């Protein structure tokens, strides 16, 4: 079975008394080690899909198998557990805790994974080294540039060796040169550590760097293309 398998998945939001269908009839299969972009116009349901992929939210209909396990029916607690063990997140707005330094931010998933303090510290430093920020371990987020903050966030996403890293517009707040650096890091992690990447982007240039592009429109999968051309 594929790493990610979605079958006829749907999500309906309740806005007051009105039902807002955000996703409909999603059938999607993602293999381990893929490097994939989700694209589509604003409001098409990309973030909604990412939230469900990341087990931050549950679908209202259909099935979602992650790594062979049906996670569509899990409760909050179990979803938290799945997130902790299998998923790393990179956000557009970095989402680092502002009052603790880089290495402590990176340690965060390990705290909830019950890793002991010394091992936590070691893993966090290793992760920072992977994103080229070993020398910034003691810096607070406010003392780092946007690109550096996003690298800390990437270190946090990969510190507990997840199967998959989900990134919703990870370069949305960064200039093109820094964006390229970030994409480079993703590509290396994908190649060397076999981490699956799913990222949302508006930028076609970025989309063209991916192995596969899924197009979403009005909550439905409209296109699914493999990229054989240019590579990063």
């Amino acid at each position, binding site marked *: 079975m594929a790493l990610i398998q979605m079958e006829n998945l749907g999500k309906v939001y309740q806005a007051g008394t009105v039902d807002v269908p955000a996703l409909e009839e999603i059938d999607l299969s993602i293999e381990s080690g893929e490097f994939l972009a989700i694209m589509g116009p604003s409001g098409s349901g990309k973030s909604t899909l990412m939230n469900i992929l990341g087990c931050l939210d549950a679908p209202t209909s259909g099935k979602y198998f992650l790594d062979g396990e049906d996670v569509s029916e899990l409760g909050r607690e179990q979803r938290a557990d799945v997130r902790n063990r299998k998923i790393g*997140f990179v956000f557009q707005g970095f989402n680092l805790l502002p009052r603790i330094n880089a290495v402590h931010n990176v340690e965060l998933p390990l705290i909830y994974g019950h890793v002991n*303090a010394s091992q936590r510290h070691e893993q966090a430093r290793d992760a920072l080294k992977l994103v080229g920020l070993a020398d910034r371990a003691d810096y607070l987020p406010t003392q780092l540039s946007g690109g550096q903050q996003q690298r800390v966030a990437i270190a946090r996403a990969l510190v507990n060796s997840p199967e998959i890293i989900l990134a919703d517009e990870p370069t949305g707040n960064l200039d093109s040169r820094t964006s390229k650096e970030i994409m480079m890091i993703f590509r290396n992690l994908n190649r060397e550590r076999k981490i699956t990447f799913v990222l949302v982007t508006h930028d076609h240039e970025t989309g063209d760097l991916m192995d596969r592009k899924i197009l979403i429109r009005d909550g439905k999968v409209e296109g699914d293309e493999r990229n054989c051309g240019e590579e990063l």
Partner: protein
Amino acid sequence: MTNPFDAIKTAFGSLKVNVLRSLLTMLGIVIGVGAVIVMVAVGAGAREMIGEQIRSMGSNMILVVPGASQQSGARMMAGSVHTLKSSDAEAISKECLAVKYTAADWSDVAQVVYGNRNWRTRVWGTWQTTFLMRDWPLRCGRMFGPEEEKRAAKVAILGQTVVENLFGDAYPLGKVLRIRNVPFTVIGVLERKGQTPRGDDQDDSVYVPLRTSQCRLFGTPFLDEIQAAIVQAKDEASIPEAEKQIDELLTRRHKIGRKQEKDFSVKNLAEIHETAQKSLNIMTTLLGSIAAISLLVGGIGIMNIMLVSVTERTREIGIRMAVGARYADILSQFLIEGVALAVSGGLIGVILGIVGAFIFARASGWPAAVDPATVLVAILFSGAVGVFFGFYPALKASRLHPIEALRHE
């Protein structure tokens, strides 16, 4: 759940971010716990003090004074009633079986002169049973005997304060001093006794035989009149019996009819001290209520600031949830933060309370005892306040939806 050490570290980390706010939030708890510590320390000290004084006054004491008891108002001024005589006291001593010792008093303030020094003090005419009742030994010299009492001998026994002021380092026994110009020979010096519950220095007094005081020194308006008879009952259980016997005896001796108002009153010293204890208890209750209200207000303050904190840190909560924090992790994080606030406040309160009790003790001269058990209970209680008032905000935090929390600005 995360390991408790990490949770506590996280909690104190958050509190450190806004030290002033944390301190202000703790204030109610600080005041509440401080008040409790002072209250218990001073209360215990005062109780000990009163107990000590009761013991120094002699136990199981009954006071008989002329004039009707207080219920019938102030129609007759205490000094204007001349109805109690030393023969009454003698009769009590002889006839009331529940009575152990009896003494009769006639005292007044007088100038006491020795050489070129003089000292104003109260001079008591009394019987030597006074010292037995009050368990008050001599430091040196001797008591006046029955024979000296009978012939109104001009002999005096001095309290320590009088000795210090009149004799300094000189040896007082056998010396002659003048009270109201009447020469008296010093035959004894009493041990130090301390203060009465009202704060009078018991050592600032001179004792002479009752008859000497009545006839040679002050003179009484009526023959053989006394100001009070002090009676010691055989034991605590026989106090009511002794009171009854005295009452019956004096009613008979004074020929008071059934409907007539009594011209004497019998007071039980234990009751007097009970009143003192009661007013102490009222004070303790008052301080206790202040403490309780402060703790309540402090608790509400903690709840308030924790709710603010949950709102401010919604995004942080979202981030923590995204990386795998469970319901219980978030709940315990905020709960521990509330408890940390309350317990820190409790600790500061304990320290301030101990300092306060110490200052109070220095200022009032009362002993103040801070009991470790009280400190422990106070800290545990502030922890409980933290749990109680921190629970709702913590619950609110843990119930947040991760996506909404992450989207929060």
